[in-house]
């Protein structure tokens, strides 16, 4: 019993030693720095992918809402044009003759009836385009599924990298290193970043402060 405990302890000690050697090798070769850099990059990539999910969700949902709201308006427009057209068709024969003798009114009436007659066809075509817009939102489902899979892969890589880094303390300098170029794209995490202006009022205020 005691001897097996001893053996276990020896194995654990040996593993600790191997791990220490591995870590010191990594750090001597400068790999710990690189791994930390990679680890930081991985975390950013996760935020960026979540940003894509959130923006495409918002965009697809507002498009769907707009399509859903527009469709009944077109249905009404079509139905109203049709009933108005029918109403004009019911005017008595003698009124038609009277109107026929008034060239300006006659012309205006003809144009109006032609217009009312065309409305249902035109709204039907618009409905077809709206349906295309509706169905096109399926990109959200498809790209969403792919992004979820990429996120899972990234999480695996993140875990592996963390294990490899072991107890090496994360270099503050690396994590906080500001990017000082002017091509950063959309702001993924406005609350985590200083000096970003995500709404127009903030931008206008800053410009005003600067005297513009």
């Amino acid at each position: 019993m005691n001897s097996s405990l001893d053996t276990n302890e020896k194995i654990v000690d040996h593993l600790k030693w191997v791990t220490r050697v591995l870590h010191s090798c990594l750090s001597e070769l400068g790999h710990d720095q690189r791994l930390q850099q990679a680890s930081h990059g991985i975390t950013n990539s996760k935020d960026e992918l979540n940003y894509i999910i959130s923006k495409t969700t918002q965009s697809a949902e507002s498009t769907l809402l707009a399509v859903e709201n527009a469709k009944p308006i077109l249905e009404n427009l079509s139905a109203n044009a049709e009933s108005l057209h029918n109403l004009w068709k019911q005017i008595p024969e003698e009124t038609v003759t009277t109107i026929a003798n008034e060239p300006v009114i006659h012309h205006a009436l003809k144009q109006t009836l032609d217009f009312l007659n065309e409305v249902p066809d035109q709204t039907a075509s618009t409905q077809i385009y709206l349906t295309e817009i509706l169905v096109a939102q399926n990109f959200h489902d498809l790209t969403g599924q792919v992004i979820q899979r990429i996120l899972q892969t990234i999480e695996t890589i993140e875990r592996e990298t963390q294990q490899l880094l072991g107890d090496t303390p994360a270099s503050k300098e690396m994590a906080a290193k500001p990017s000082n170029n002017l091509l950063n794209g959309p702001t993924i995490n406005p609350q985590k970043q200083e000096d970003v202006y995500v709404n127009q009022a903030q931008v206008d205020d800053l410009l005003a402060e600067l005297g513009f």
Partner: protein
Amino acid sequence: MTDKNLRFLVVDDFSTMRRIIRNLLKELGFNNVEEAEDGAMALKKLRDGGFDFVVSDWNMPNMDGLTMLQNVRADDALKDIPVLMVTAEAKKENIIAAAQAGASGYIVKPFTAATLDEKLNKIIQNMAVHA
């Protein structure tokens, strides 16, 4: 003549996709549509009764569409309900597995309104023949 009162259950974990299908069904004249976000919830709703048609995704958490389909076909009360699969899974094995499990149709995402219309009508005509 298609019965426009058919009661549909649309199963997909993405609300966007459920909404697209619901709107397309509405355009085809079917206003009686309910939604479920995974196979398990769908099965529960189906067992509560009253559904005539299921349109289902495959890849979903909790219970996927194939397992749901197998459960439906194994349940005496549900086994005759048509199940149309609408999924991004496009491998030959998937299509074969769905067919073997008793899917009534298989639409690959992304799809068009015309495709949904065509497959749906085909299944509904079959329902009428076998009714």
